[in-house]
């Protein structure tokens, strides 16, 4: 039972991966400017505006919306996956330079310059953090300032995960104000508004230019101790993108005051169309009709299938040989099965975040594929191993006694006999990955997660369903497809046994 080799299969997979990354790179080169955005309305709108500004300057530009939080965007910028993205001065000081001492824009600019990153002038509005409550609730309790919260430690607080972690976030704020709130939990920014509306929470964090403040009739608690630093909106860009890009982005300097930004944000959320809102910046009546839903669905689904298909293929090419190896008794088997189980216990978001920090992968579809391939490994490895182990010993021995070489025993006897178990493992992987691949949109890899994320951001159920329903149908179709494959691929002699 030795000598099983991966053969030409694995090298084909490596070629495929190389092809993928090569096409991805070629694609990046033909599009000099990639604009990233964080996962909230204002960032989406600013990215669309930047695209308009760049294209008006004759620079082709592509937008990758909603890629993640500060750390992901900053890494994407450093790695060159994006050319520029909108950021705020307070965030740059606190989270990127990790130096909260107040500095002027010129000092920030020179420190970023040392990292190869440029910063535009301030766009014209300060989007600072704020704590918000429902107007009625605040009035009933008589709360007007953050300081007032000290008398109400029992209020239910729901905060975004980023705010909970930030250096200028919740904990330092509590220390500064001497707050001791008893009920604090993390919540998605968009869901927080719904939770406020239905009374599940009393207090959340928000951006001061957030359109929802008006929409939900919320009040901003006064920051009487001036805890929150300034969050002037700017664009960060790679200095190696060239002077034209820098000049074009700098044309936005001073063109957006707070009132105008709130208006654009509100328009974006009302129409569910960021490019339409961005077109208002340029004085337009709105962009042309966006692509039809059908075309979007085809694009999302095709991308989704590509992500799942490539990752599944790689999972099979890696998982089956590993499973064969793991079918033999000994510590190697324990190691392989243990390792595959361990990967599965890492939450998918954490795995994506870990992979994004690997320089070779970064913010790219390749990262999503690697994450999916790792997730798909366990069912295939485990089922291959158990399928082979379940072969009765007399048949195993007969295969050897006939005089078949170990490799021929594997190919002619063991793998066909384990085929049903292996196929079941592959099916499990495929179905899991169709669901997990919706997370690929978090790092800008596209797929059916795109409408889910933007729908979540817009608090728009219809948009969420545009992604969720096809994803669910796709999972069912995959399940059905594999049941058909079962009839074709499983040797007839084995199916007889299932009655």
């Amino acid at each position: 039972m030795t000598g099983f080799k991966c053969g030409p299969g694995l090298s084909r997979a490596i070629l495929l991966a190389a092809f993928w990354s090569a096409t991805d790179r070629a694609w990046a080169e033909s599009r000099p400017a990639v604009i990233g955005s964080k996962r909230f309305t204002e960032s989406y709108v600013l990215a669309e505006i930047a695209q308009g500004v760049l294209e008006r300057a004759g620079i082709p530009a592509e937008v990758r919306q909603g890629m993640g939080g500060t750390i992901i965007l900053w890494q994407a910028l450093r790695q060159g996956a994006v050319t520029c993205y909108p950021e705020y001065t307070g965030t740059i000081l606190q989270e990127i330079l990790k130096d909260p001492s107040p500095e002027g824009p010129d000092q920030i600019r020179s420190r970023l310059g040392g990292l190869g990153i440029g910063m535009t002038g301030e766009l014209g509005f300060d989007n600072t953090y704020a704590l918000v409550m429902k107007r009625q609730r605040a009035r009933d309790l008589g709360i007007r300032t953050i300081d007032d919260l000290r008398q109400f430690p029992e209020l239910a607080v729901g905060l975004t995960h980023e705010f909970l972690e930030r250096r200028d976030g919740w904990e330092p704020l509590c220390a500064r104000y001497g707050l001791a709130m008893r009920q604090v939990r993390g919540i998605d920014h968009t869901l927080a508004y719904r939770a406020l509306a239905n009374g599940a929470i009393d207090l959340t964090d928000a951006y001061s230019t957030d359109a929802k403040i008006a929409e939900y009739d919320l009040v901003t608690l006064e920051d009487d101790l001036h805890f929150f630093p300034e969050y002037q909106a700017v664009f960060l860009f790679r200095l190696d993108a060239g002077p034209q890009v820098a000049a074009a982005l700098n044309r936005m300097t001073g063109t957006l005051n707070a009132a105008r930004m709130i208006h654009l944000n509100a328009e974006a959320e009302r129409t569910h169309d960021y490019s339409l809102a961005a077109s208002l910046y340029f004085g337009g009546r709105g962009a042309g009709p966006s692509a039809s839903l059908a075309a979007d669905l085809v694009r999302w689904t095709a991308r989704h299938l590509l992500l799942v298909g490539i990752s599944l293929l790689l999972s099979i090419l890696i998982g089956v040989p590993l499973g064969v190896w793991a079918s033999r008794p000994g510590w190697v088997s324990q190691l392989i099965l243990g390792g595959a189980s361990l990967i599965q216990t890492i939450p998918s978001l954490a795995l994506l975040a870990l992979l994004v920090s690997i320089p070779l992968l970064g913010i790219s579809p390749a990262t999503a594929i690697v994450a999916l391939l790792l997730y798909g490994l366990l069912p295939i490895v485990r089922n291959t191993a158990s399928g082979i182990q379940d072969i009765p010993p007399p048949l195993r021995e007969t295969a050897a006694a006939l005089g078949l070489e170990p490799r021929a025993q594997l190919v002619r006897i063991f793998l066909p006999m384990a085929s049903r178990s292996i196929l079941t493992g592959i099916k499990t992987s495929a179905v899991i990955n169709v669901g997990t691949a919706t997370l690929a949109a978090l790092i800008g890899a596209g797929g059916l997660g795109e409408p889910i994320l933007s729908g979540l951001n817009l608090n728009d159920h219809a948009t969420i369903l545009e992604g969720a329903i096809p994803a669910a149908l796709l999972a069912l179709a995959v399940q059905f497809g594999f049941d058909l494959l079962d009839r074709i691929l499983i040797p007839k002699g084995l199916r007889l046994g299932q009655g």
Partner: protein
Amino acid sequence: MIQLHGASKRFGSFAALHPTDLAFEGNRTTVLIGPSGCGKSTILRLIIGLTEPSTGTVQFDGEILSPQNLLRLRRRMGYVVQEGGLFPHLTARENILLMGTHLGRPREEMRRQLEALRELARLPADVLSRYPLELSGGQRQRVSLIRALMLQPDALLLDEPLGALDPVARAALQTELKAVFQQLNQTVVLVTHEMAEAAYLGDQIVLLREGRVVQAGSFAQLRDQPTDGFVSEFINAQRRLILE
């Protein structure tokens, strides 16, 4: 053809086979017989290299079995196990042709060989396209026997080939096995625990107990000149059942 020189097999402190010298020669059928756990199957497994001797050697046609020559020597032996050892994902024909196809033997030659053996083993032609799960116990053993003989082996090893069959199928197959053994001039080693079967099929009978050879000889020798009380006891135990 096959010799055991001081070959033994231990599993920890348990001796499945004490150091044993045995020779299986020419076109003779040797039956290994004895109660469960006497070491008879272990001898067969040593010969085909499914287990390695703890001490001593096993020799096949002058060569000592080793990992280097094991594959080549195994292809000169045919092996039939109790349930037939047919692979469920292959039809009877595919099972039979497995090794020949793998080794790239000429199709026409294999077809003729299969046809001759099928006649010999009295297997209906339509059975060949069926899967093992669609076969009766007797048919399975016939297919297994044909598979073992396809490469025209120098030795045929059978581990309780009739053990799982009902009495009628068993009797029919005994007759055919005897015909096959006589027709093909091979060294045959057969394991059973039935003395009547041993007496009917074997030119030589080797009676074992607790990992040791008690007596080896023809059935008449064992019956008329037992070297040990156990020999008579073993023969009479089975005879008494029939008489009473």
